[in-house]
C-alpha cells in the first residue's frame, strides 16, 4: 500500500523530445505499469491501469502524478531565462532506491573518489561548513554556501577552480543544483536530476541542464554528464541496503552530510517513504 503523500507528488516519466504515438513509452511508476504517448490530437497522455494520470510538461520532461496533485510542479525560473541552453541528457537506469539516487546528487564529499580528477581530486577533500535549511514557504530542502575545489568543474572549464554550489530538493525524487558558471561570473549553471521511481529499488535518472555555454557541442555536454552518472551508478548499485534508511543508527553521517540529514528528515516528516527503509534491519 503506497501512502497518499507519495501518490500525490509529481514524478518524471519521459523526455518530451522522445514521445511517440501509442503505445509510446511503456514503463513503470511506483511499481505500476504506465504508457506515455501522444494521442491523435497530439496531446500527451500518461495512461495507467485505472485511467489517465495528471500530467505536466516542464523542463524537457513529462511529469505525472498518480494521485491527486498536492501542489503544482516546482518552478525552475532559470528554464525561462534568456541566453540559457537547455540540455536533455537522456536517461540512466540504476538498480537502487530513487531516494539514494537523489541523496548521492546532493553529496559533494564523494567527488575526489568517484569523479576523480574531474569534479574533485585528492588532497582537496575537505568539505567546509555550509548552510542547510528546510524552507517552509516552498517546502524545499536547500543547502547554500557549499564550496569545493574542482579540477574540471564543467565541460567548458579550462582548469581547476573553487566551485560554489547551492543544492535544492524540489520534489521527493527531483533535485536542482546551482553551481559557479565557468563562462559567466554573474550567473549560476543549473543542473538537475529528475528521478523516475520504477520500483522502490529501481529507478531511471534523467539529468537536465540549463547552462550558459554557447560553444561546447551538445554531444560533448551530454557525454560529460553521462560519464559522471555512470561513475555514480557504480556506487549506487553497491550500497547495502538498496533502500534508503530513514531511521538513524544504521548509517553514520558527519558534518559534510548535513544536506543528506535534512533530506532524510524531510522525507520522513512528509511520509515520503517509497524507497525508504523505516525499521533498522
Amino acid at each position, binding site marked *: 500500500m503506497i501512502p497518499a503523500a507519495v501518490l500525490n507528488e509529481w514524478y518524471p516519466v519521459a523526455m518530451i523530445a522522445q514521445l511517440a504515438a501509442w503505445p509510446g513509452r511503456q514503463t513503470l511508476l511506483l511499481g505500476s505499469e504506465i504508457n506515455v504517448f501522444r494521442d491523435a490530437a497530439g496531446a500527451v497522455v500518461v495512461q495507467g491501469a485505472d485511467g489517465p494520470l495528471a500530467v505536466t510538461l516542464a523542463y524537457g520532461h513529462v511529469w505525472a502524478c498518480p494521485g491527486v496533485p498536492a501542489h503544482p510542479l516546482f518552478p525552475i525560473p532559470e528554464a525561462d531565462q534568456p541566453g540559457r541552453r537547455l540540455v536533455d541528457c537522456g536517461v540512466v537506469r540504476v538498480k537502487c532506491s530513487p531516494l539514494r539516487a537523489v541523496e548521492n546528487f546532493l553529496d559533494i*564529499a*564523494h567527488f*575526489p*573518489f*568517484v569523479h576523480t580528477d574531474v569534479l574533485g581530486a*585528492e588532497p582537496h*577533500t*575537505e*568539505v567546509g561548513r555550509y548552510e542547510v535549511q528546510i524552507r517552509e514557504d516552498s517546502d524545499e530542502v536547500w543547502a547554500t554556501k557549499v564550496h569545493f575545489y574542482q579540477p574540471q568543474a564543467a565541460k567548458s572549464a579550462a582548469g581547476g577552480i573553487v566551485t560554489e554550489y547551492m543544492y535544492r530538493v524540489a520534489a521527493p525524487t527531483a533535485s536542482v543544483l546551482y553551481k559557479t558558471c565557468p563562462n559567466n561570473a554573474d550567473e549560476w549553471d543549473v543542473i538537475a536530476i529528475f528521478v523516475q521511481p520504477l520500483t522502490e529499488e529501481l529507478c531511471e535518472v534523467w539529468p537536465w541542464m540549463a547552462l550558459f555555454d554557447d560553444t561546447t557541442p551538445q554531444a560533448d555536454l551530454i557525454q560529460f554528464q553521462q560519464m559522471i552518472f555512470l561513475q555514480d551508478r*557504480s*556506487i549506487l548499485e*553497491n*550500497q*547495502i*541496503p538498496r533502500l534508503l*534508511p530513514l531511521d538513524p543508527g*544504521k*548509517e*553514520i*553521517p*558527519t*558534518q*559534510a552530510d548535513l544536506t543528506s540529514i535534512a533530506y532524510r528528515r524531510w522525507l520522513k516528516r512528509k511520509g515520503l517513504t517509497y524507497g525508504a527503509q523505516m525499521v533498522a534491519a
Partner: protein
Amino acid sequence: MWVANGLSQDLPSGVVMAGNWQGAELAIWRSVSGRLAAWGDRCPHRGMRLSHGFVRGETLSCIYHGWTYGSDGACSKIPAHPTMVPPAAIKAEVYQCVEADGVIWVGPAGPEADLPDLSGMVAVRSVSVLGDVAALTRALPGFVADGALWRGQVGGVSVSLVVQARGAGLGLHALCGAAAHRVAVSRWLDGVVQLVEQEALT
C-alpha cells in the same frame, strides 16, 4: 566455523576482494606489508561495499568517500574532515581471518575451533562452479567429505578440495600432495567443474 575464502596466492598485497561467511558478505584484503583482514562488506557511513575500496599501506579505504580503516577495523580518517579524529564508534564489522597451508580462512570474531589440517599440501587453484554439494558428490566418487574439506586421490596423488558456498554455486579451493602434480591436478579440476555443472543440470 571457519570458511575457506580462497587461496593465499590469489590475494596479493594491496588487494581487496569480496568473500562470505555463512551468508554474510565480506571484504577481504591484504595490506602492503601482508596483513590479512576480513570485514563485513559495508562502510558504516553510507553502506557502500568495502570490497570496491582501495588499499593504501596498512589501510583499506571506501571508494565512495575515502573513509579509511586500519587493520583493527577502526576508522582512522574521514577525508571530508581532515583534521577530525574519527569517533571510535565508526568501525567496520571485524571477522577473524587467518591463512594456513595456502588457504585463507574466515570465522566470526571470538575463539574458534582449530583449522582443518592441510599440512604438506600445496595450493593448486580456486574455481567457481554452478552446482550444489549433491552434484559435487556425484562428480567425485571416492572422495570423502569432512565438513567443507574433501579428500581423495587423483592419479596416485592426494588431493584436497576445500568447498565454499558461493551464492547459487560453490567455490572449490584445490590443493595437492606434490608440487610436481599441480598442472595435472589443475586439468583434472577443469573436468570436475564440467562434471558438476552437467550433474547439476540432470
